[in-house]
């Protein structure tokens, strides 16, 4: 029954989303409000319908309905309840449905929230969000249907999967299915997997809203700052989730994959990082358009590239294009996804060119000074885009090009990223440090020098302290120097503004700081984000450049020493967990300078022959003592232990938390004020193949009434 409910809801959602697209396009062409209202209602209905579909699949997973092929393939009778829940996104079919549902949630919220304020953009927003949603529902329905069931041919005994009952077939006995059910990949049985994929998916699908608004602005020719203002918060939400997804992914890899690292420059990791880089460039450059009316073409390029990269990453991960520990198996969704990605990228690029040629994207001001804030923001953007292009080339460009040109695939190893990315990240931190000190229009070197003197002095003091700890190496000092400078500038800017309030208004320092955040959350929230990125940077530098490790075979009572730490092997424990996995647990005592500091239990979990190494970790802000049990020889009770010292690695996770707080502060800003649709220019009368607005010079019929129709 659950399969029928889920499938019916999915089909209705497909029809509803398709109807929304058609109605929105017709509304734009005819200018008739009733069609726009129909489009909205159909679009809004898609989300609850998909919710029913997702709930049906979830209920099937939780109640062990093994007649459903997806449930059979990702759970088994011993799967704990928690992982039955996470199995919803544990494999291709379920995760596409889950992804589509999240996208419909974003579309639902964005349409309802912005309905009254941006009537002229609404046809485009509905059309583009729903076209994307329709595409993904289509994938779910026609290629990766999570509601396919097993059917038994009673004559031949053959079992096949199909969504509708094949003639003459019956449901196989549940017991047979339960016995042969496959269970969830052990690597996915981790707390990180509960939140990492949803966060990443929210980040990915969230960018559909800025993309849809940008496309709506271009198709309606309403290229005022309205679409920028409307999408600011949506961009931040998507960016926040994507940041969280990346950080949690790193943490999951660190805890589960058993290699002492958190980022391996794997193509799938890179694919998720690319939209983050472009999205970060966008949320910076958009400020310049808001304040100065500049970078209009650039912002469109960035927002469209970000979404295009989201689609490319999805295609690359789900099509089997790349070999990666994170990739899905080869699937039929590859070709349609590639075509969809190519279409949206091509159409949106063409629209930008057309609108630029029409003169609708002229900047209000030219660049006047190389030290102005707008120039430094552009430089910052160039660095982000250069990073994105370089990483794209290494992950996808070089392998695909080489195979097309020479017939032999050339892959790019981690050495490439270790050479190319550090200078660009250093430049990024340097710009993060000096850009906040600049002013719009023009900044004198003297003014910048005065602004930077205290943060620079603080940075030098910290570098001297680091030197005194015995740290050496030009790379480390450049890295620490630029990251600390960026952080101190952020702190200095907050302190300087608070000090001015203390002087002028006689407030206490704490009240002054709170008042700053209340009055300009966006700016000061941004500084907190910079602080978070600084802390992450310090963690990355420390853990990358100064990670140390050793290994050895140990008998009971023997020790392994690294730096001022030693670990003693005390014995082994063999146990069976509730979910039937066999656990081999090493009991280890950690000592520092001969003094016991903790006891750890690194272990190997064996899921029917598939092993998973769970590290023992002693975490402090200074470092992680990270121990892997790599092998246990039962005959002589020996273990091979690997001991890693990962300096400052925990700053990465703490920096992530600071970044979240800063983004929430900045995104919570109530400063935005959106203009109601401004008068379009005379050039808008020109038509083109992508023009959905028949008579854009006049307001949408009943535009003023949309509020009454709205929520």
């Amino acid at each position: 029954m659950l399969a029928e409910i889920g499938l019916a809801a999915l089909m209705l959602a497909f029809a509803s989303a398709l109807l929304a697209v058609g109605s929105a396009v017709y509304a734009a062409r005819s200018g008739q409000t009733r069609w726009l209202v129909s489009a909205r209602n159909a679009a809004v209905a898609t989300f609850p319908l998909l919710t029913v579909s997702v709930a049906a699949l979830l209920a099937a997973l939780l109640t062990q309905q093994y007649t459903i092929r997806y449930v059979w393939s990702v759970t088994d009778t011993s799967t704990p309840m928690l992982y039955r829940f996470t199995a919803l996104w544990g494999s291709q079919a379920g995760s596409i449905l889950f992804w589509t549902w999240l996208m419909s949630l974003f579309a639902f919220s964005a349409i309802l929230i912005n309905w009254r304020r941006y009537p002229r953009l609404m046809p485009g927003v509905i059309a583009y969000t729903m076209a994307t949603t329709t595409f993904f529902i289509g994938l779910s329905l026609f290629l990766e249907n999570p509601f396919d069931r097993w059917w038994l041919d009673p004559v031949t005994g053959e079992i096949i999967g199909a969504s509708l009952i094949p003639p003459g077939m019956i449901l196989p006995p549940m017991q047979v299915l339960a016995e042969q059910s496959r269970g969830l990949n052990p690597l996915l049985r981790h707390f990180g997997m509960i939140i990492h994929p949803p966060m990443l998916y929210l980040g990915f699908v969230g960018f559909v809203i800025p993309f849809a608004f940008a496309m709506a602005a271009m198709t309606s020719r309403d290229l005022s700052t309205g679409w920028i203002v409307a999408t600011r918060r949506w961009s931040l939400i998507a960016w926040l989730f994507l940041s969280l997804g990346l950080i949690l992914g790193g943490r999951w890899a660190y805890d589960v994959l058993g290699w002492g690292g958190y980022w391996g420059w794997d193509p799938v990791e890179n694919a998720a990082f690319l939209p983050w880089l472009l999205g970060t460039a966008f949320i910076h450059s958009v400020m310049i358009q808001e304040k100065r009316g500049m970078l209009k073409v650039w912002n469109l390029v960035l927002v469209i590239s970000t979404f295009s990269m989201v689609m490319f990453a999805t295609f690359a991960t789900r099509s089997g294009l790349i070999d990666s520990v994170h990739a899905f198996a080869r699937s039929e969704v590859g070709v349609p996804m590639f075509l969809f990605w190519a279409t949206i990228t091509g159409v949106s690029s063409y629209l930008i060119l057309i609108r630029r040629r029409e003169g609708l994207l002229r900047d209000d001001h030219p660049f006047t000074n190389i030290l102005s804030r707008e120039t430094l923001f552009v430089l910052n953007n160039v660095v982000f885009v250069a990073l994105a292009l370089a990483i794209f080339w290494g992950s996808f460009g070089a392998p695909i090009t080489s195979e097309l040109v020479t017939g032999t695939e050339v892959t790019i190893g981690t050495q490439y990223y270790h050479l190319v990315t550090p200078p660009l990240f250093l430049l990024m931190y340097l710009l993060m440090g000096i850009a906040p000190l600049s002013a719009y229009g023009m900044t004198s070197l003297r003014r910048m020098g005065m602004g930077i003197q205290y943060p620079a002095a603080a940075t030098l003091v910290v570098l001297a302290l680091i030197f005194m700890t015995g740290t050496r190496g030009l790379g480390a000092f450049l890295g620490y120097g630029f990251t600390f400078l960026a952080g101190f500038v952020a702190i200095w800017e907050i302190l300087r503004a608070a000090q001015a309030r203390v002087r002028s208004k006689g407030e206490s320092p704490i009240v002054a700081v709170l008042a700053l955040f209340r009055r300009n959350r966006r700016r000061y929230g941004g500084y907190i984000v910079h602080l978070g990125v600084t802390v992450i940077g310090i963690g990355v530098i420390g853990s990358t450049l100064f990670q140390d490790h050793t290994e050895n075979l140990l008998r009971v009572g023997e020790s392994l020493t690294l730096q001022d730490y030693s670990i003693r092997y005390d014995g082994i424990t063999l146990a069976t967990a509730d979910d039937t996995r066999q656990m081999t647990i090493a009991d280890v005592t950690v000592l520092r300078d001969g003094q016991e500091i903790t006891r750890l239990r690194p272990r190997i979990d064996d899921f029917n022959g598939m092993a998973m190494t769970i590290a023992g970790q002693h975490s402090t802000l200074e470092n992680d003592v990270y121990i892997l049990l790599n092998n246990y020889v039962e005959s002589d009770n020996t273990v091979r232990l690997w001991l890693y010292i990962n300096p400052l690695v925990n700053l990465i996770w703490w920096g992530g938390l600071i970044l979240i707080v800063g983004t929430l502060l900045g995104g919570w800003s109530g400063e935005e004020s959106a203009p109601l649709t401004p008068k379009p220019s005379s050039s808008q009368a020109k038509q083109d193949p992508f023009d959905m607005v028949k008579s854009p010079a006049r307001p949408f019929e009943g535009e003023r009434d949309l509020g009454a129709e709205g929520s």
Partner: protein
Amino acid sequence: MAQATWEKSTNARAALARGQKSERIKFLIGGVLLLGVVLYLVFSGTLLGARYFITIDEVLKDAQYAGQTVRVTGVVLGETINIDDESQQTIITFTVASFPQDHPNLAEALYIGANDPNATQMQVRVVGQPKPELLRQEAQAIMTGKLDANGVFVIDELNFKCPSRFEADAPVMGQQDHPGMELSGNAG
């Protein structure tokens, strides 16, 4: 007076235009420099990190790859896995076999490769790395390294295609397990 104002305004406009031109030149020079640096980094990085992704047959038989660091894939033969735990560093040796690269079902391709007596085989050696969790019979190994003088492939970097789960094509009536399995799923 009127003439003086006009002259002043013309001079100011000319000065502004000169200033803008000079800034434009600065932007241009800066942009070209930055582009040059990025292109240089990408070019050098590509030369440093580029590895041919070739088959076992190619690495063993094609002279152009001799002594070069290359990336090779093969299927692990489980019974050949040997872990030398007595040394200071872990030394892992095993044999990989070639398998049909264009087969639509990876699991079946790996099964064929592992059980084909005519498949080309290559011994590999990896030193100083933790024993990979996924090293076992019929796993797909993706290896970066060089062929040494003894015909052993010495690995710098070793990965395995993630067997996220054993996904049989379909359950079978009256059978507990199924030999055909597919490596698929998502770990990220």
